[in-house]
């Protein structure tokens, strides 16, 4: 399972021009992410962590270098193929949950399935199954404003699994949650990773995420500072008041 490479970057550089000046967000990133891995991208603000995350998620294109998702060069894809990639290959989880406000939990989960061409019945059945899997079987008809932050993030995780993607991209998934709920979300992502073998790539500041990660990629000044294997790092997690 862990042998196949699902994401590969080759000397990826990203330069933004801001106020007439060039800002080097990424300065040559070479990274291989294996299928089924749980990987965390960590680094301080401005390190290039989000830029790298957007590159491996097919959300942005590099100024130079290559990003391969499942051995397909993302830069070569046209708009239609990119949409297909986002719909079928990648599931996104956002810090701000990004539940479509006019839709119920079930409609949010089934939307990517509608885009993928599933029938209404197929989509509903799968949507309910996914919501049950994330513990929201009794909340299928709830609108986002009727759900807590943690529940909204669960809906987002169920939605990210809608089309059985190869990769889940989670952008600071616990950033807007309290400690307990954040831990629940991390455990849920890990459970998805274990059960379905989906590759989880997460940009995070949350140290709790390190414990479930197979590898941690540390970014600094647009370069990979180091890559730690989980087995090689010693993490001691304490408990904070109020945390289970």
């Amino acid at each position, binding site marked *: 399972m862990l042998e196949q490479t699902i994401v590969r970057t080759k000397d990826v550089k990203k330069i933004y021009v801001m106020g007439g000046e060039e800002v080097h967000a990424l300065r040559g990133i070479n990274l291989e992410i294996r299928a089924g891995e749980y990987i965390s991208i960590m680094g301080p603000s401005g390190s290039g962590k*989000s830029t790298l995350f*957007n590159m491996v998620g097919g*959300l*942005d294109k590099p100024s130079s270098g290559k990003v391969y998702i*499942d*051995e*397909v060069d993302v830069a*070569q*894809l*046209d*708009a*239609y*193929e990119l*949409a*297909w*990639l*986002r*719909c*079928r*290959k990648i599931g*996104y989880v*956002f*810090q*701000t949950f*990004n539940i*479509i*406000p*006019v*839709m119920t939990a079930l409609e949010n989960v089934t*939307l*990517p399935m*509608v*885009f*993928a*061409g599933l029938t209404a019945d197929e989509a509903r059945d799968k949507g309910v199954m996914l919501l049950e899997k994330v513990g929201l079987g009794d909340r299928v008809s709830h609108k986002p404003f009727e759900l807590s932050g943690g529940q909204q993030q669960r809906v987002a995780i169920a*939605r990210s699994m809608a089309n059985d993607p190869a990769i889940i991209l989670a*952008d600071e998934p616990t950033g807007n949650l309290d400690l307990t709920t954040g831990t629940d979300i991390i455990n849920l992502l890990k459970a998805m990773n274990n059960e379905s073998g989906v590759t989880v790539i997460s940009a995070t500041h949350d140290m709790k995420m390190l414990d479930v990660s197979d590898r941690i990629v540390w970014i600094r000044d647009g370069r990979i500072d180091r890559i730690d294997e989980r087995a090689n790092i010693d993490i001691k997690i304490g408990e904070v008041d109020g945390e289970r």
Partner: protein
Amino acid sequence: MPESQLIEGDQVRIGKQIVLPLHKAIEISLKSLKTRFWRSIITMGGIILAIAFLTTILGTNAFMEGLRLAAEAMRESDDDDEREAGKALEEVLRRKGYDVAGSTFSEGAEGGGLTKRQAKEIWLVSLAVFVAFVGIMNAMLMSVTERFREIGTMKCLGALDSFIVKLFLLESSFQGALGTLIGIVGGLIVTVLQLSIGFGFGNIFGRFLEVMFLVSLFKGLGLAFIVGAVVSVLGAIWPALTAAKMQPVAAMRMEA
């Protein structure tokens, strides 16, 4: 193209295309309007007022056209009393400022070009419709700006640019259709009230209600509906294209 530039060996295959069925797009658009009910009402406000104004002008002119034709028919009658009544009616029309020699509005050119009154009406109606157009465009652009996260998320979920355009144009069409209908009903009510005060309520629904009046009226209402629908869709094109061009990475933006 769909089937295949993504294929590398047997690794990736595009089985189904990316789709957004029309019934689903309509469902999403209606839900969006329902959820943002008050904003929709404000967006519709401009079109309601413009179409109500247009309906009032067209309705009044249709009525006057009916009266003019009635007066003309009466003047050609063999009955002396009827001829006298026809002259009296023409006199009333002149006093109200209507040109009884030619048509009052749409066919005015036949009688030697538009009258001053007609030209003024066209100018005012055009202005009202233009203001409604700008109002719709402004409201829709604001809506696009506010909904950056929703649009970005949809794109992350696989929405094509054309889906976003479809959703925004549908929303605008529904707003335009409803706003136009409300405007037409409102405009008709104002027209009837205004004419009732000028000519007496009984006269409007009795003596002067000629077939020609109804034909002109329905032509006018049809025109008002077309104007409302066209303005609503045209006003939404630029905002819809702006939304469609938004990059999926917008979904990651933190600021509200």
